[in-house]
């Protein structure tokens, strides 16, 4: 008999705590309707920046390609004799492989490869996870 009382009392005490939270504003976020604020440091998809002249800033040094632990970046480089610098003729990132470690962004000497705060990145086909230069250079 005392046991029943003890167990009931323990349950009531627990219920007391849950009841307290019943009157407090809920902490859950109703996702598609409201969104939480993403930190500016968020490691989302990759983006290449343009320089002040409006042309691509990347000079194809291939450091991001080499440092990537999962080999998801590939590029082709050519040299423009007139401007006396290198350009990339293609720059492809396979986001199906990417693990968003951020090593490429950290290593970029021109600081032209950056993360976006984009996190909604799902598609129906695997092919659309492979982003080419026209989508990355924004």
């Amino acid at each position, binding site marked *: 008999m005392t046991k029943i009382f003890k167990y009931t009392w323990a349950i009531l005490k*627990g219920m007391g705590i849950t009841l307290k939270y019943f009157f407090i504003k809920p902490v859950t976020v109703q996702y598609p309707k409201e969104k939480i604020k993403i930190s500016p440091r968020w490691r989302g998809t990759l983006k290449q920046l343009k320089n002040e002249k409006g042309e691509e800033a990347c000079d194809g040094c291939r450091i991001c390609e080499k440092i990537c632990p999962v080999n998801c970046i590939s590029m082709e480089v050519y040299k423009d004799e007139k401007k006396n610098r290198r350009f990339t003729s293609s720059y492809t990132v396979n986001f199906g492989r990417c693990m968003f470690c951020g090593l490429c962004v950290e290593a970029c000497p021109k600081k032209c490869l950056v993360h976006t705060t984009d996190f909604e990145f799902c598609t129906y086909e695997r092919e659309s996870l492979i982003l080419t230069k026209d989508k990355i250079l924004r």
Partner: protein
Amino acid sequence: MTETLKNTGFEEMTLNMGPQHPSTHGVLHLLLKMDGEVITEARPDIGYLHRGMEKLAEKRTWGANIALSDRWDYIASMSNNFAAVLGPEKLMNIAVPKRAEYIRIIMAELNRIASHLIFFGTYGIDIGAFTPFFYAFREREMILDLYESVCGARLTYNYFRIGGVSADLPEEFVPGVKAFIKYFRPKLKEYDTLLSTNPIFMDRTVGVGAISKEEAVDWALSGPNIRASGISFDIRKEDPYSVYSEFDFNIPTGKNGDCWDRYMVRMNEMSESARIIEQALEKLEPGDIMAKVAKVIRPPAGEIYTHVEAPKGELGVYCISDGSTMPYRYKVRGPSFVNLAILQKMLRGLKIADVVAVLGSIDIVLGEVDR
């Protein structure tokens, strides 16, 4: 009737538990031999999440291995990062700046709280109490928000670098941690009311799956599991790495080594971690966060074993360098893997209803068991 069963060999039954059982915390497969409701033999079958991390590490640079280390124990990645950077740092004799050391400790201890909160929540579910899960994840979410503001990821942080940390703390981080600690301390009392002292919970856990001191040493347990048996073994005290020797904290221990003791040790550890974080925040001063390290990391040839006290136990990395940019051998001693081995001894003689209580109390993560 029993005679017929015995003669025909049908009395013992083999029961496959998992790998898709929700209470096995992932993809653990338990082969249970049962005599009625009593377990006569238990054999954990692992390997469903094997990714070959140690072999992968031999073909990755030392820096890239930190990113891979996030995937061992994926709910305590900061501790994994810690273990991954200590080895090359010692080989190359890098002195990490003071600020980076304190930042590392704040991160590792916050991660200990986060990992133990997951244990608290999921153990409640294993036993049959659902409410603690929501409360634990509500608090854990705050820690993840703090991590997100620092390193930009919520689970695979990749924050430590050889020689320091990757980014300095943002402005809102220190007040955020202080506010979290202030908010978190009273919650621990709430957890005690909800679960720790609940008589129904205690009936299920007190005296179940006891490990004696000798057994705990024999099976090389570490972390909260060995401390619950009454042995005060903590690498932060025994072999202090980083700047842990500067901090004042206690090591909570249990007495009987049963499920409830293992649970309580973790609950007490959370408040100790909060104490360490408070002390580290006081000592935090502006300064460098990275030592001067060459861009291409080539540790001199040699071998080294470094270990840290991860939330689950002793996480050690034994690495051999041949002087190139990649490790020659990279062996990881995962605490979950070693702690899981004692399950086959503990389960023998228990009822089937206690399997989940015992398995939950040793707190494994399958990502680290299989690697």
